[in-house]
């Protein structure tokens, strides 16, 4: 019992656990659509692009989150627009926009008179540094994203599977696509402090890809992915506490191990299924 409760004697650890649980669950829930729509690249894309927002916010002396949110949402909408109007694939649109925005961030930072601020916490995350205000923002935005996902549930599912027929039947596929991109941008922003720019993509992709290995039902995949994300985040944080390792990396490593276990289970199941026929 002590082993489980020990970390909670520190208030910053309590906040870290809440943040990890929320971020792990949310990323892996929306990640189900990321994996099924083959958008694995997007987490990386929007997270890197938000770096430009963080730099601008730093130079202007405004809140980092404000800068990151504005740039991430604009990048998400830009990716959707270029994809729809520019006759390029979504992957290419992401590639063009995120490198552009990231380069802008580096450019601005290199011209800054002095940049001794520690931006590494945005690259690799610093979940132990989540303040009370950060936590309120994380919980607030997570609530917005969760409610939106619930409202869009069927439209997201139909357009993920068969966008053309969904659109013909009267579902506004363009709206659904843009909405998903904006919700992704918000999810990525609130995950930055927990796992950082470099590792957020893993939280979006790995739990959902893990669930995909072992189920052929969409609802099962959704719940399983959310559970795997939540468990990896909380267990990963515990592990990092006792191993004195970086929390974001520990969480992602745990999810990666889960993926390979699920892959082995999925393979052996398929083998025994085909063997019995």
């Amino acid at each position, binding site marked *: 019992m002590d082993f489980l409760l020990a970390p909670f004697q520190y208030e910053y650890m309590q906040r870290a656990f809440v943040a990890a649980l929320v971020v792990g669950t949310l990323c892996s829930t929306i990640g189900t659509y990321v994996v*099924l729509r*083959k958008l694995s690249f997007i987490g990386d894309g929007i997270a890197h692009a938000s770096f430009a927002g963080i730099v601008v916010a730093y130079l202007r002396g405004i809140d980092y989150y404000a800068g990151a949110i504005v740039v991430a949402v604009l990048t998400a909408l830009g990716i959707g627009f270029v994809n729809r109007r520019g006759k390029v694939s979504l992957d290419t649109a992401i590639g063009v926009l995120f490198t552009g925005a990231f380069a802008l961030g580096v450019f601005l930072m290199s011209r800054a008179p002095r940049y001794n601020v520690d931006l590494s916490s945005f690259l690799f995350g610093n979940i132990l540094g989540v303040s009370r205000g950060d936590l309120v923002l994380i919980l607030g935005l997570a609530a917005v994203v969760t409610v939106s996902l*619930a*409202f*869009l*549930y*069927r*439209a997201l*599912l*139909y357009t*993920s*599977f*068969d966008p*053309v*027929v*969904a*659109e*013909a*039947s*009267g*579902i506004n596929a363009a709206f659904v696509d843009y909405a998903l991109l904006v919700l992704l941008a918000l999810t990525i922003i609130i995950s930055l402090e927990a796992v950082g720019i470099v590792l957020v993509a893993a939280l979006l992709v790995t739990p959902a890809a893990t669930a*995909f290995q072992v*189920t*052929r*039902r*969409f609802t*099962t*995949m959704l719940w399983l992915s959310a559970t795997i994300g939540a468990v990896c985040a909380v267990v990963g944080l515990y592990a990092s506490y006792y191993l004195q390792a970086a929390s974001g990396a520990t969480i992602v490593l745990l999810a990666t191990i889960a993926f390979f276990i699920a892959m082995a289970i999925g393979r052996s199941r398929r083998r025994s299924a085909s063997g019995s026929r």
Partner: protein
Amino acid sequence: MSVAVTVSELVVRYDRVVALDRIDLELASGMALGIVGPNGSGKSTLLKTIAGLVVPSAGTVEVFGVAPRTLAPGSIAYVPQVEAVDWSFPASVADVVAMGRYPRLRPLARFSKADRAAVDNAIESLHLGDLRNRHISQLSGGQQQRAFVARAIAQEPKLLLLDEPTTGVDARTEESLREIVRGLVASGLPVLMTTHDLDRASEWFDRLAVVDRRVLAEGDPETVLNSGAYAGIREHAHVHGHARS
């Protein structure tokens, strides 16, 4: 009989290629209109434009008197020729058919008894009962086609658009599809369908149009087939095919 679809002076261009050139067509409720024409004649484009998926370059398409995109969700059901879906998507036959109900459901609304009945009905009428829990990747081509037609029927649309639903299916499937479509037409549903199968045209359709970027002939299936309008373009396409190779 009320008019379901009115296409007038419709022109569709892709970049510089003219896919459809001043098309005029009308479809009344309770009628099945067949569209025949060679490959690349713009048949699929015509269906997509009526479905609201392609924006006309000129002219108008009206479905029940308004532009297709302004209809209430669930009004048009469209079954494409080739389903470009990811077959590894986690969905069973029943899941796919249930999607037909999605456009008309409000957000957060529960799947009602009526929704479930419509899905069961569509599954039964396409003889998919034994396959309802099977994953979509484990279906044959004909079974996949039937699942997508079932989804369109579960939608209970006001207009049904079918793009070559009989291509690549066996005779039994063709016959059951025909019976289902004729039943829907008898109940008042307007149906627009493209096909390559001329032999059964008069059993499928009330009217037949020969389209090769333009409407070359339109009318009673027997009359149109006997007019030689289709034979003419077939010859034409054949000669073209030779010239290219």
